[in-house]
């Protein structure tokens, strides 16, 4: 796939400012601070793994880089079968589309996956955490917000259904 035809880029072109919510901005302020300290403290431990496990692949958009960790293989295999494989790579769904949170999440997940992979002891099949679940929901909405307009809350701050309540298979049925 050519770099310039990546769907996430098309998507971010399409995305407008309405999705950068004030709430998210606030959360970033505090979260990023705590995160930075934490990262600093643990940096030494994680560095070898991060490097050897091609942790830098987190900085890339290539799905192949995710399967440097074989625990991601099932997701990769079924992503290739999925309705989205030609329109969205892993990062299109798993990284926030807003430019700042994107890098925070990248660092955060990249670091913790490396740590978890090295130390073991994570759940198998892997279970997504609430925080990352919210990321995927936000990316669905970002790409599809026109189409799903009626599903958005009628009033500000209202809740809405989880897309994968119905579309569980879109990214990857397998785990």
């Amino acid at each position, binding site marked *: 796939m050519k770099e310039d035809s990546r769907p996430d880029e098309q998507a971010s072109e399409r995305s407008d400012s309405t999705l950068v919510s004030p*709430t998210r901005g606030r959360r970033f302020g505090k979260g990023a601070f705590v995160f930075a300290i934490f990262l600093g403290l643990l940096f030494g431990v994680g560095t070898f793994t991060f490097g050897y496990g091609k942790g830098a692949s987190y900085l890339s958009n290539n799905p192949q880089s995710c399967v440097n960790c074989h625990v991601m293989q099932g997701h990769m295999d079924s992503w290739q079968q999925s309705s989205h494989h030609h329109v969205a790579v892993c990062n299109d769904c798993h990284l926030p589309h807003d430019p700042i949170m994107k890098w925070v999440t990248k660092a955060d997940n990249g670091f913790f996956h490396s740590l978890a992979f090295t130390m073991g002891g994570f759940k198998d099949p892997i279970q997504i955490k609430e925080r990352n*679940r919210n990321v995927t929901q936000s990316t669905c909405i970002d790409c599809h917000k026109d189409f799903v307009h009626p*599903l958005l809350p*009628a009033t500000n*701050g209202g*809740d*809405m*259904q989880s897309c994968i309540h119905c*579309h569980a298979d879109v990214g990857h049925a397998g785990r």
Partner: protein
Amino acid sequence: NIFERKQEARAPFTKVVEVSEVSSDPEPWGLNFPQQYEDYLKTVDDPYTDFGGNHALPPSKLEVNPWLVRLFAGYAFSKDYREARGHAHMLADQEVTKRVTDVQQSGACLHCHASIIPTYRRIGLEKLGKDASVASLASGFQQEAVIAGFQEVSQKKYEEVHAEVEKTADGMDPISGDPHLGGAHPVSCIDCHDPDTMQIRVTRPGFILGIDKLAKSDDPVPHLPSIKQWRDKGSKGNYDPNTMASRQEMRTFVCGQCHVEYYCANKMTLTFPWSNGLKMEDLEAEWDSTNFPDGGEFYDYVHKETGTKVYKAQHPEFELWSQGIHARSGVSCSDCHMPYEKVGATKVSSHWVRSPMMNINKACQTCHNIPEEEIKARVDLIQDRTKGLIDRAASAMTEMLDAIIAAQEAGATEEQLAPIRKLQRKAMWRLDYIASENSKGFHASQESARILGESIDYSRQAIAACLKLAAGEPVATAE
């Protein structure tokens, strides 16, 4: 909580015409939301038009299952009881059923068959001595007045209340403020939507009171997380679905306003029996412990063949769904009965509320990625098993009636019959519970079979008890 996804609102829609809390006529709403309105109008279509033109009534359940006539002996249901059909018919079907034309019914019947909230509000406001003008009716929901009006008319005569609905305005000219009088309507946009925001909501007093009782019970209701949250926060005040339920829960609650077991007659106000929980036994326990205002024991009718006071179960879809795997998985009524459909560049909820089996592709296949015939085969299998057990329970029930009649003819005393009547009531309630539920077991497959198994048990225990009476043996009491 996975349902809580606080989001920014959608862009406000453009209102072609203004609608308000008095707009029970759906037509002006249709100008704002043509797609939903068009679908809604399709609910006049139903598979029964083959039976001789649009005006024919749907098939009689009594003819298909003659044992129902014996089950309901002495009750209005034994005169006329038909298949349900689309929402557009609900008011007309009620008006012409022999249950209404041949029997005096109460005004509470209209709670679920007409767009009655503005009428409740008007009568409530009058009762409370407040302004009941059309402008006042249009100005807000005014729950207190709605509930007051509901309580006021529930026990009045059907015809009387029907006339009240007809004389309430069903709309108001937004500029002149003039009322529009278009008569009574079946369930309409205003019954499920806030006219300002279009958010879904519940309006029916029966549900608002019932779900609060449920929240205050100790039924775990794992499928209704907002109730758990309310309890965890100390169960303060009342549980208010309109402000506390998640949107996904609301997608079921709007249906739970009507598709539920109820008491609806002239001895007390319309009641949803949820104070112990939503299981069949919980509902039964509420009826068992209810007394009428006059102090008498609760019952729905005296079974004519046997003289036993029994309960009538009506369409407990919400309650049975609650016991099923879909409820536990967070699947709402609307997910299946009002699935999203792609219309042009957007997706909307199908307002053609109907059997999902007429629309398997949208109703099921998004979640169940398997062929349509296979889905149909699975539903058929569940329904066939249920049907087989219903027939079995029905045979046991009719044999029981014969046995009780024989015992009475042989001179059994009331004292001797007392435990047998208890068994009879349990057996009939359980059979009716599943037979009157409209999914033929689908909404909770194992639970349906369990309930029917119990019905068989009680019917046949009653038979044995009668035979023992005849033989002069002592009869054990029902457990």
